[in-house]
């Protein structure tokens, strides 16, 4: 076997069917240039990165320009992005902001864990058994229409301006929506999965544990991820109640002294934590349910 035939064989394997020479005999085709507005077509990673940078950059540019062209008096109420970032840095460096951030994280995560601990079992049972749904359904849907903030006076009277009332408010803010979502997720489990279990001889508890729960789990995980975002949005309201510590309290105090840069730094911080939480939940889902992400 000469060197050139070996070469040819390798080329053939590399290009799949037919050798390079045969491929080269076919006329050259020049595809049309990739257009920016093409239905459902994904931009190249490079282009996507540029677009993301342009979007973000435009936002900060408009913000910076808005600040630049504001009058001297107004500039105090509309700090530039750089000023906000500086304020955020100063908060961490000089004002022990980390303790407030951790406190806020604790409130959101602890109250949400409690809410999930109640809502997931309740929703699973309501979604699986119409009788449980008949028992709890009307109660849950009625509660959903009551704004959580309207409970603040009550919670203050019951618990006082302490952690408990804040946790309770965050809990009330998400629990009833979470139950409703988990009920939907559970009812979306195909009947055939349940019936397949029953015709294999699964008991009701086995069907619930082995079939309904894993079948609904990815959707429930999505519901949890979306509802903890709502919990973050309630944080500032919760921390107004007897503001002492936490991101919301820092922002409220800054408001009293018209320190808009600190208020904006707080908003930015909550945004960052929100994105972080989202990524955390996605990662947990991906790691614990790899089967749901394989396509």
């Amino acid at each position, binding site marked *: 076997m000469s060197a050139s035939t070996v070469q040819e064989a390798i080329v053939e394997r590399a290009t799949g069917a037919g050798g390079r020479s045969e491929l080269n005999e076919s006329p050259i085709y020049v595809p049309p240039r990739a257009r920016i507005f093409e239905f459902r077509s994904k931009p190249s990673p490079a282009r996507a990165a540029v677009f993301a940078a342009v979007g973000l950059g435009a936002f900060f540019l408009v913000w910076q320009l808005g600040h630049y062209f504001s009058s001297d008096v107004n500039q105090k109420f509309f700090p530039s992005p750089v000023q906000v970032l500086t304020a955020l840095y100063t908060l961490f460096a000089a004002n022990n902001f980390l303790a407030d951030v951790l406190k806020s994280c604790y409130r959101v995560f602890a109250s949400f864990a409690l809410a999930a601990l109640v809502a997931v079992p309740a929703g699973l049972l309501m979604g699986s058994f119409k009788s449980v749904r008949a028992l709890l359904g009307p109660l849950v849907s009625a509660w959903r229409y009551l704004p959580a903030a309207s409970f603040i006076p009550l919670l203050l009277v019951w618990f006082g301006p302490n952690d408990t009332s804040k946790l309770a408010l965050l809990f009330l803010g998400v629990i009833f929506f979470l139950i409703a979502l988990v009920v939907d997720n559970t009812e979306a489990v195909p009947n*055939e999965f349940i019936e*397949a279990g029953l*015709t294999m*001889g699964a008991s009701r508890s086995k069907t619930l544990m082995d079939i309904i729960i894993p079948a609904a789990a990815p959707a429930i995980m999505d519901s949890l991820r979306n509802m903890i975002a709502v919990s973050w949005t309630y944080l500032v309201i919760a921390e107004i109640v007897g503001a002492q510590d936490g991101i919301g309290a820092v922002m409220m105090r800054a408001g009293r002294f018209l320190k808009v840069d600190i208020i904006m730094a707080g908003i930015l911080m909550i945004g960052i934590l929100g994105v972080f939480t989202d990524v955390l939940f996605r990662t947990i889902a991906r790691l614990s349910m790899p*089967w749901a992400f394989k396509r």
Partner: protein
Amino acid sequence: MMVAEMNAMQMSKIAVPVIQASRVWKQFGNGAVTALKDVSIDLRENEFTAFVGPSGCGKTTMLRIIAGLEHPTRGRVSMNGATITGPSPERGMLFQAYTSFPWLTARRNVEYGMKLLGVPKAEREASAMEFLRLVRLEKVADKYPGGFSGGMKQRVALARTLAQNPSVLLMDEPFGALDAQVRWEMQELMIELMERERKTVVAVTHDIEEAIYLADRIVFFSCQPGRVKADIQVEFKRGRRFPKKEDLLAQPGYTELEQHLFAMMREEIQAAAAAA
């Protein structure tokens, strides 16, 4: 005398009904819909029965009542003499919708029914691999069915149902969602499985060719209310199973039966159109 008796005994043994449905009625919506009207069917051991007929004639309803997933409004359905009151692993069911569990690998799917029956782990694992080989999925035993094609998903469910070793296998349009080529492959696979696993089978199907290919007996349903219009033994096959489908098409008698069934189907569809 002796010989005649022996024959009679053998005959009765072959003809023993595993499932007896007598005078079954099924109404939905407080009598608004009569899905089944006074239907009596005996299913004999190791016989492959196809339920054929236009849509909405109660085929699925009858199958689900046999499975124990639905209760009859009136009448009695029994298995080996005992009234059926709910589902049982004795009667395995294959659905048209893919029911392979996406959260379990193919192997764990097949093991699941056996696990419920208390089969020891080692035996279960060996048996699962055997059934996966049978449906030609041994190479993807440790993959999740999420990325499988429809045919592969259905083969996982089929292997899982067979692995629970039911004496009756119920199938509701099991290949209805598959494309023509895959359906054909699944039909030939069914023939192969029937040769290996002696089972009493009922398959609901729209597909007349499929019914003739697979079944020993075709029960034709008529509509509104659902009733048995015809109960046909597929005589021309004389109990043979054809591993290759094209061999069946060449058999004398095939075309006549197919024409007969198509004519019945047309009659029913026209009757339904006239009634509406």
